[in-house]
């Protein structure tokens, strides 16, 4: 891996605007095993799951959640092998289930629920998340900080958030290796809105 090169020149081309993913991406974007970021039975695997909820507290059944994180050794390269196709029928058969790719993609179900199986990230206490949905004109970035990960106390983002806001970025322990992380697109009258991030 060569050393990263910072690009210091400001952007000169204007970006292509974002548009909503809409409700009908389901036959196109999700793929078999999209939530299995590590092979089934992998030692040390953890489940990250929760609901995507709107400003009425109602589940969002047509959201798409993407997760990106470093490998346990801290590597941020990712790996190909997510979208393999059957060479005869052309059908997507998904991952070969042997490697950690760092990337997960899952649609929410009718209850607005998503789940990925992964391993704790190396070097940082969080996984990066993007949320797409009908009604979202531009996707949203957030992070799920694992409640039992080292490094949370020194984290640059967490340390500058007020406590109530910070709490929306922390997972809740449910069972051994099970992390609950609900994503609230808007304050619903009871629950705080999830902190969303701008990388400008």
């Amino acid at each position, binding site marked *: 891996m*060569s050393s*990263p*090169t*910072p*690009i210091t020149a*400001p*952007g*000169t*081309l*204007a*970006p*292509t*605007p*974002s*548009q*909503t993913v*809409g*409700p*009908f991406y389901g*036959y*196109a*974007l999700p793929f078999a095993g999209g939530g299995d970021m590590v092979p089934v039975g992998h030692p040390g695997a953890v489940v990250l799951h929760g609901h995507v909820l*709107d*400003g*009425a507290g109602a589940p969002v059944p047509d959201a798409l959640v*993407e997760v*990106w994180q470093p490998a346990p050794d801290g590597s941020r*390269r*990712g790996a*190909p*092998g*997510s*979208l*393999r196709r059957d060479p005869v029928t052309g059908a997507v058969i998904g991952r070969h289930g042997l490697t950690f790719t*760092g*990337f997960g993609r899952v649609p929410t179900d009718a209850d607005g629920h998503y789940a990925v199986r992964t391993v704790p*990230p190396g070097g940082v206490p969080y996984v*990066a998340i993007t949320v797409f949905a*009908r*009604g*979202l*004109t*531009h*996707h*949203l*970035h957030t992070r799920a900080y694992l409640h039992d990960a080292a490094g949370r106390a020194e984290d*640059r*983002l967490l340390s500058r*958030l007020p406590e109530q*806001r910070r709490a929306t970025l922390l997972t809740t322990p449910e069972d051994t290796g099970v992390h609950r992380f609900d994503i609230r*697109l*808007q*304050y619903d009258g009871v629950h705080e*809105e999830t*902190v*969303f*991030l*701008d*990388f*400008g």
Partner: protein
Amino acid sequence: MTTPPAPPGTIEPSSLIRPGTVEAPVLTQARISAEITAARDDYARSIAAGAPVRSHPDRDYAPYRSSTLRHPRHELTAMGSDPEDVELSGPVFGVTDITDLDHDLTRRHQGEPLGERITVTGRVLDRSGRPVRGQLVEIWQANASGRYAHLRDQHPAPLDPNFTGVGRCLTDDQGTYSFVTVKPGAYPWRNHANAWRPAHIHFSLFGSAFTQRLVTQMYFPGDPLFAYDPILQSVTDDDARGRLVAAYDHDLSIPEWSLGYRWDIVLDGPSATWIEEGR
């Protein structure tokens, strides 16, 4: 949910109106169009007052009613550009993820799909104009009649057994992507009464960083539905909205075969995006 309007010349049977129910006022196109105009006027005033150009749509865009309960009310938390941020690197897809046929949506079934065959091509660039190489581009779309191969799309237009409407490719060394497909049709939706979406192709792009991730829609030039559509109009900047419309390119049209469209895509992301040399 609204019911489809009665055909012209027919009378709505009064037996369908249940006694005791209060009819919600019909949300007309005129009302939505007035909101679209108001949002554009607000944006023009903000620019005149010195506010920066906004290329991306507001998340709180009332004419698109689905945004009402789904937009955050807090300001997003500014992250600056810390090279340690995980979001500045991203997924890598490779040749094993894509087959030669994936970019051709007309070759995915036993027969050929109905409709006007088109090729769509262009370059994926970062904001400095450098090609974004070897990255995954995914598309999905309705068929030529304006219907998705999705159970929840119950719009009474014919399904095409030879068209599903999903394609993938990786950008090449010049950042170029290319698809063969059919031109999608316009279709109705239920944002308001008589709402119709202009023909469009959905695009999903991975740049070289998670911060460059983009989901967007490509539109076709000259579509009469542009002004009526709150999703396209959610981009209130005229130039930015124009960048969502492909150009017909006669040099890309193939004799006896297809019409050609060119659409270049510029991925956003911090100006200090970290890349790896040689990629």
